[in-house]
């Protein structure tokens, strides 16, 4: 469905402030403020005012009017600072009401003849205005208030139809209230495209609230001379009520079959909110006094609507803030803000009155409510990253900005997104579904075909105001200001939350590292200091051994036990030291010849084998990548274990081999020893875990823990399989370095 194309853009370029003419129901004089001499006048002024203006040497225009009362009013006004003059003058020809205002091109005086019939005074209008105020005082329903205003203006002016016309964000207008006598068709609830009232006309409406066209078929009265003697430019009639209007607008009026129109701007907080738009089938004049009363109604309406909107907005903001506060409180207790959002999806959605929401971080996406599919959300976020314009993004017609979104317009025609990380592509997004609705235009708002008379289509207002319905698709309910602002607030809160979390986590990590270090250094110093006394016990016992001859057998046994115990304790301490050192020492990674390490271990163990019958089966052993000293220790531990637990086997068969795989090398140490019960396999690699009685097999129970730690630190794995009395198999894998082949 194509968007309505404005048909009166050409109109927006018309110089409506300087038409060079006025409507002829009044006359206009421009006088110099200093000496009151005539600068410019409308070419109907002399006739309408019944004075001579053209000839040189004529009396100054104010004197020529011959009304000292008016001259005094003018003097008083010019010596004051009131921006507008309101007065009356009675000339030889007729009585006129006079409006005056200053411009940089001189003082503009506008004269509108009055006749006894429509002569209204504020005194007479006052009771009616008061009634109007009382009528709308008790209600806050916009339609009721607007209708009351329409009725009041129609009563004041006698127009056939009075509309209350409200602009939307795109400057399209909708008639929200209407009062009429049936002479003109009803426009209630119709929508008019923005181009019907072009931008510069809207700006003029904002500045000058009242505009009147008593007769659309008027012949303009030109301003003479055509340019101002002050600055050589055309006279700026922005604030003149007699300003001649665009011929396009007159054509527009004729197309609407209205001969007279008046509009009163409803301006709220300096913004044009809407218009009170009055029309009459036949020409109709409205006296300045009545116009003032209408302006008063308009201003009152503006105040009323403004107050109501502000209250509603404030109420909405308070409600959103309450939701946000509650949500943040719950987020603060959550593990992560993502999880917190998900756990409080209802509040998350109601924060901006959305039907779906998602949070997307480098870790993934989580969604709640009605949302596009995960893949679509990722694409959407990818596109969002390319969008500029601040951390908050809002649209009520996503497919228009991001065509791919048309596929899921039913869930996400509205998108409100906040970026919640300064580093990553992290977003919290809300979705609103498509709101298919029918808009009834006051005539087809699309561009009319150029006609023969006007081949460009320019200056050719549409001629049909018949109802024309359009189905609006791929549009969601627009995001309200309070919701967008709320999202921005929420973003700040999330950023703070994430930041605080990160700090807390960093603090915790620091603390853990500190306490870990303390623990390590504690265990190190304890074992280090323990080492000396054990060394001394062994040393002195050995010295005592030199005197063993003087001891009896029992004494020698005791001495031997002391030495044994102290040696065991010393080994324990050494192992502990090794273990704690292993956690701290940095790895020196290099290629390691595993055949060499195995051979070295075999040599070291040869001392322990003594005259045992040991059959070493050494298979293929691919090179490993690791710290040679640590790997030596790990291999030694496994082989020494195998040797230890095959004691009593004849032959003891110990097989060591390795296999090269794509990403790792796997090594196996297998024995035919006493094995172990797989029930306890989980305990095998624990520090000081033993599966056998100490008197059966010596050792501190730290060897396998140490081995596992070595393998772990290499990023590898180790596992054990065993069967009681059938042997044990230890298998470990060591990863290959990335991007390097060991056979290079």
């Amino acid at each position, binding site marked *: 469905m194509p968007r309505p194309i404005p048909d009166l853009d050409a109109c927006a370029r018309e110089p409506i402030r300087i038409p060079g003419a006025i409507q002829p129901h009044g006359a206009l004089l421009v006088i110099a403020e200093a000496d009151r001499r005539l600068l410019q006048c409308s070419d109907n002024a002399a006739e309408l005012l019944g004075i001579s203006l053209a000839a040189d040497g004529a009396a100054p225009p104010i004197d020529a009017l011959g009304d000292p009362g008016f001259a005094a009013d003018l003097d008083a006004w010019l010596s004051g600072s009131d921006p507008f003059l309101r007065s009356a003058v009675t000339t030889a020809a007729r009585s006129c009401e006079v409006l005056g205002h200053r411009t940089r091109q001189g003082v503009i005086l506008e004269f509108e003849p009055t006749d006894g019939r429509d002569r209204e005074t504020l005194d007479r209008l006052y009771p009616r205005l008061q009634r109007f105020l009382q009528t709308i005082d008790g209600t806050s329903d916009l339609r009721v208030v607007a209708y009351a205003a329409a009725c009041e203006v129609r009563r004041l002016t006698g127009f056939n139809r009075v509309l209350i016309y409200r602009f939307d964000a795109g400057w399209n207008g909708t008639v929200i209230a209407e009062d009429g006598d049936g002479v003109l068709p009803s426009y209630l609830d119709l929508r008019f495209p923005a181009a019907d009232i072009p931008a510069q006309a809207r700006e003029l409406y904002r500045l000058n609230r009242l505009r009147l066209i008593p007769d659309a078929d008027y012949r303009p009265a030109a301003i003479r001379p055509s340019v101002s003697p002050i600055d050589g430019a055309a006279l700026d009639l922005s604030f003149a009520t007699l300003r001649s209007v665009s011929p396009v607008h007159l054509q527009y009026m004729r197309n609407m079959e209205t001969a007279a129109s008046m509009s009163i701007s409803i301006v709220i907080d300096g913004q044009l909110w809407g218009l009170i738009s009055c029309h009459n089938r036949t020409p109709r004049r409205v006296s300045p006094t009545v116009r003032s009363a209408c302006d008063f109604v308009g201003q009152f309406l503006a105040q009323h609507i403004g107050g109501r909107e502000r209250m509603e907005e404030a109420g909405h903001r308070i409600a959103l803030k309450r939701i946000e506060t509650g949500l943040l409180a719950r987020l603060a207790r959550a593990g992560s803000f993502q999880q917190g959002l998900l756990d409080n999806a209802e509040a998350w959605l109601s924060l901006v009155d959305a039907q779906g929401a998602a949070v997307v971080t480098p870790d993934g996406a989580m969604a709640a409510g009605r949302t596009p599919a995960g893949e679509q959300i990722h694409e959407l976020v990818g596109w969002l990253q390319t969008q500029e314009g601040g951390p908050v993004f809002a649209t009520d017609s996503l497919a228009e900005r991001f065509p791919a979104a048309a596929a899921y317009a039913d869930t996400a025609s509205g998108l409100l997104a906040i970026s919640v990380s300064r580093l990553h592509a992290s977003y919290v997004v809300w979705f609103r579904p498509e709101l298919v609705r029918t808009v009834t235009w006051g005539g087809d708002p699309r561009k009319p075909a150029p006609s023969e008379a006007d081949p460009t289509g320019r200056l050719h207002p549409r001629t049909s105001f018949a109802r024309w319905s359009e189905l609006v698709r791929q549009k969601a309910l627009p995001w309200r200001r309070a919701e967008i602002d709320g999202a921005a607030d929420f973003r700040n809160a999330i950023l703070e939350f994430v930041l605080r979390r990160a700090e807390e986590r960093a603090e915790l990590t620091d603390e853990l590292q500190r306490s870990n270090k303390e623990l390590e250094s504690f265990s*190190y110093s304890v074992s*280090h200091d323990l*080492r*000396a006394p*054990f*060394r*001394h016990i*062994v*040393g*002195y*016992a*050995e*010295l005592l051994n030199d005197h063993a001859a003087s001891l009896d057998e029992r004494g020698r046994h005791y001495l031997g036990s002391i030495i044994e115990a*102290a*040696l065991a304790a*010393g*080994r324990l*301490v*050494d192992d502990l*030291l*090794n273990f704690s*050192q292993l956690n701290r020492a940095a790895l020196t990674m290099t290629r390691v010849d595993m055949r060499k390490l195995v051979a070295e271990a075999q040599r070291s163990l040869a001392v322990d084998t003594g005259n045992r019958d040991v059959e070493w089966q050494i298979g293929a052993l691919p090179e490993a990548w690791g710290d040679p000293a640590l790997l030596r220790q790990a291999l030694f531990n496994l082989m020494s274990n195998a040797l230890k637990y095959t004691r009593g086997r004849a032959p003891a068969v110990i097989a060591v081999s390795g296999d090269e795989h794509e990403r790792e090398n796997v090594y196996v140490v297998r024995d035919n020893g006493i094995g172990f019960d797989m029930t306890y396999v989980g305990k095998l690699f624990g520090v000081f875990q033993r599966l056998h009685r100490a008197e059966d097999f010596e050792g501190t129970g730290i060897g396998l823990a140490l081995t596992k730690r070595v393998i772990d630190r290499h990023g590898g794995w180790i596992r054990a399989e065993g069967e009681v009395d059938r042997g044990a198999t230890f298998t470990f894998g060591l990863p290959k370095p990335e991007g390097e082949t060991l056979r290079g």
Partner: protein
Amino acid sequence: MADLRPLLLVEDNPKDLELTLAALAKCQLANEIVVARDGVEALDYVYARGQYGNRAPGDPAVVLLDLKLPKVDGLEVLAAIKGDSQRRHIPVVMLTSSREERDLVQSYDLGVNAFVVKPVDFGAFFEAIQDLGMFWAVLNEPAPGRANSSEPWRQRRWQGD
């Protein structure tokens, strides 16, 4: 050819001292063994000052230096000896209580000549000391250019605490 210059043993722990001396005694070295109980005493001996102001001239055949010492620690003594061009040829063997300490000394890279991690197993300790003692005191050639005093030095054996 035996070098009969004295060995300087620097050790503050009395038990380690006694055990080390016992081990050295088993080597039956002819060399005198001079004992210093802290780093200050050790340097006093090396520089023939303080209580050693009147000692016979000449450098020790080897210094067996404990790492942890009161006042001036082993590393400082090592740094002083190896930083002095007149003394840096004196062989220094560091006695450390653990492999960790050995690494520490190595990291200083001060030109230490050998390490001995004091083993709990007295036998191993004994062998290490014996090896060192024999090597430095008996087998080692003195550094060239140093006069080899042939004067027989008084045997001075440490007699315990």
